[in-house]
């Protein structure tokens, strides 16, 4: 059923009319035109659509808009004003990306990991990041970038 919702994304409240089951992913991409959050699988298995919900990494393809009342969402567009979050800077320093499609999701997962665990071990990183697939195979660079960001 189409209803009116108010969602707080990147510190800004948006009024949205959408089907109650519409996942946040498609609200972001199709309604709000915020396309940094990527569609990869739609079943919560690849992590390309990762955003922060109250500071925790979640898969936006699994979050219906009707469940977002009173929450704060952060997307890749809101992670930093100028692309200078330590994780984003580390991603550039380690030259992580190949095709780059999964990297918004990887960065959002990494930022959430470091927020909750500022000094992760290699194993912490591997376990936390396991939900994010990179088809190009940049995993070793992602790990290095997270380790670098952890020192900042």
């Amino acid at each position, binding site marked *: 059923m189409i209803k009116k919702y108010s969602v707080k994304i990147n510190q800004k409240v948006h009024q949205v009319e959408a089907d109650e089951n519409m996942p946040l992913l498609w609200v972001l991409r199709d309604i709000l035109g915020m396309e940094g959050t990527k569609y990869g*699988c*739609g*079943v919560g298995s*690849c992590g390309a659509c990762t955003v922060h919900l109250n500071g925790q990494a979640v898969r936006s393809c699994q979050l219906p808009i009707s469940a977002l009342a009173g929450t704060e969402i952060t*997307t890749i567009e809101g992670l930093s004003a100028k692309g200078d979050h330590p994780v*984003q800077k580390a991603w550039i320093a380690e*030259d992580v990306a190949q*095709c780059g499609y999964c990297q918004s999701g990887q960065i959002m997962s990494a930022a959430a990991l470091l927020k909750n665990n500022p000094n992760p071990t290699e194993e912490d990183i591997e376990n936390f990041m396991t939900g994010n697939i990179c088809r*190009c195979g940049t*995993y070793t660079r992602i790990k290095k970038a997270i380790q670098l960001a952890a020192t900042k």
Partner: protein
Amino acid sequence: MKKTDSNLSRRSFLKVSSLSGGGMMLGISWFASAKPVESLGELNIEPVWQEVTSFVKIASDNSIKIFSPNPEFGQNVMTSLPMLIAEELDVDWKQVEVEQGNYDPKAFPRQFTGGSQGIRMAWKQLRTVGSAARQMILTAASQAWNLPVTELTTANGMVTHAFSGKSETYGIFAAAAAKLPVPKDIVLKGNQSFRLIGTPQKNVVAPKIVQGKPLFGMDYREAGMLYAMTERPPAFGMQLKSFDATAAKKMPGIVDIFQIKVYNDDHKFAGFDTRAFNEVIAIVGKSTWDVMNARKKLKAVWEVAPEKKEMGQNGQERTIPAGLESTKKHYAQMLEMDKKPGKIERRDGDPEKAFAEAKHVIERTFTAPFLAHNIMEPTNTFAHFVGDKVRFVAPIQIPDFMVPSMVARLGIPKENISIELARMGGGFGRRAYGHYMIEAALISKQVNAPIKLIYTREDDVSGGTYRPMYQLTYRAAFDENKKLIAFHAKGGGVPESPLHANRFPAGAIDNYLAESWVIPSNITIAAFRAPRSNFNAAAEQSFLDEISEYMGKDPIAFRLELLQRAKDNPVGKTNDYDASRYMGVLELVREKSGWGKPENAGKKRGVSAYFCHNSYAAQVIDLRVKGDQVTVDQVTTALDCGVVVNPEGAKNMAEGAAIDGIGNALFGQLTLTEGRTDQRNFDTYRMIRHNEAPKKIDVHFVKNEIDPTGLGEPPFPPIFGAVANALYKATGKRFYQQPFAKQLS
């Protein structure tokens, strides 16, 4: 200062160029018009861009813009190709801004992503582009200063006359340079003079990628755009009989639902226009979610399709068999084919006699399943059909391959097709096949609106164009001294053979026989990173490992021995590889991995080497196995791809190839039951993940002065063999069937 350049002004550049009749063309036809753009001259406070060639624009403030011609799918050509131009143009890389060129065969003669050919083909051409533009700047400076060109030098985007101390930026001379004819005699730098080529440079698009900017086809949107999906038969070998869209059309946001025919019945297939299903149902709506929901209400009736004939452009007819195929049956069929005589592809000496007289024969059969490309960005395309013109924003590897099919199906001349090349969220061969562009154009035409066609992940995994299924049986014959006297390779697949009859170890063994066979199928296949090689390397390099063990030889020493023979006294007339370069990567990987060193004695390691796409790669992998868990501690890669343009990007590519290969070797499989794929998304199709990636990857390049050869594909195939060989060390079991992880539990 704000720069005025934009896509709009870029288009006006091209318009001016075409109005003036194409302008100056260099002998090798690499340059479009060299005209300045008068219309921008009015905005005198802002820098004025001059199109020196179709690849290079220089602004009055000395900003440099270089267009990257090739479609980008993560191979990082947007950095490495402009580096070739910037090197010869003699500009500071920091001055350079890179922009993706759109599909424009006049401006950019080779816009092709595939076959690891990008740098190889551009090596001389794009340096020529840069050198020509530099010479035009020099000529303009010489005329302005009334000084001989021979007294002028360039560096970092500056022209200098050392004697008088005069020095000015390229920007000062760009307007005059743009009016000059493109020089015919181009001199390129010697490799020793390179200042940029060979230095590690970071991906120029990275700042946008890390901010999630809308770079990809999937991200494209414009006012009035509708969203479309297609419903296809649920299984290969089925076709649409009828459908009822009454309920689906009543769903919110739905604009229209209709049937489309991808190709005309008499379509002549060109090779990269493969599609699995010709009759599909298009669902068009106002959002992706609306379309996804409406699809569930669609009532379609599917039926088993009869045998079909497809005509190729080469005049050859191909039969697409009827039936609902299954993986289990495919494996049985492949074993049957192995018992029958194959088509002889190569024969050296007298292999039959040698096998008959052999004291010992080792025979092993290797198999691999279909693989889905699983590009992270699912298939999509924007299309807007207006009148007799169509405009695409498309993630497509080789637009040239699709244009003839578009012309044939859409009934419009090729000049009426424009394609903006979107960054691709992966390709791996999948996006060399652009049938989705035709689907998108037909849908746009029908609804008379701009549309974005999206495949869901399920559509993408289950909709065809896979790495084929393969099988190779190797036989090796030995005399009483365990000397290798004959070799037999017999390979085939569904529906293509992987065999490369003239590759190693052909040329190294006196008695050699290679045979191939195929099993026709209605399951569509595609190039997949290092086609055929990605299986050959796994099979051949595992087999060589096993026979070296029987012979009591070190696996690297054994390969080198064979290669030495191929180098000194090759068997046969045609051997595709250069034995010296092959040996070079094996020697380098032996050194860098500390192969055979006492400190590595306890490691479970496997080695493998392969030649493909004009380059040579060898890998050593160290892994551990606990139950069904494989932990990869390290991969050491040695690569000979000639001169390395951008070592940073090249290393990233080789690391990714190792991870991609390990993942596919251990887990990759697409299986079918009654024509339906058993895997449909990442919850059932197992991809390698962070915790399964190697802890460390070292990449080493053979240093030489050879013009660049391939890079994207060569480091992918050998790792499959290295994994199999290391798994043997770890478990005592040989691994013949991919994916290997299935046999660990």
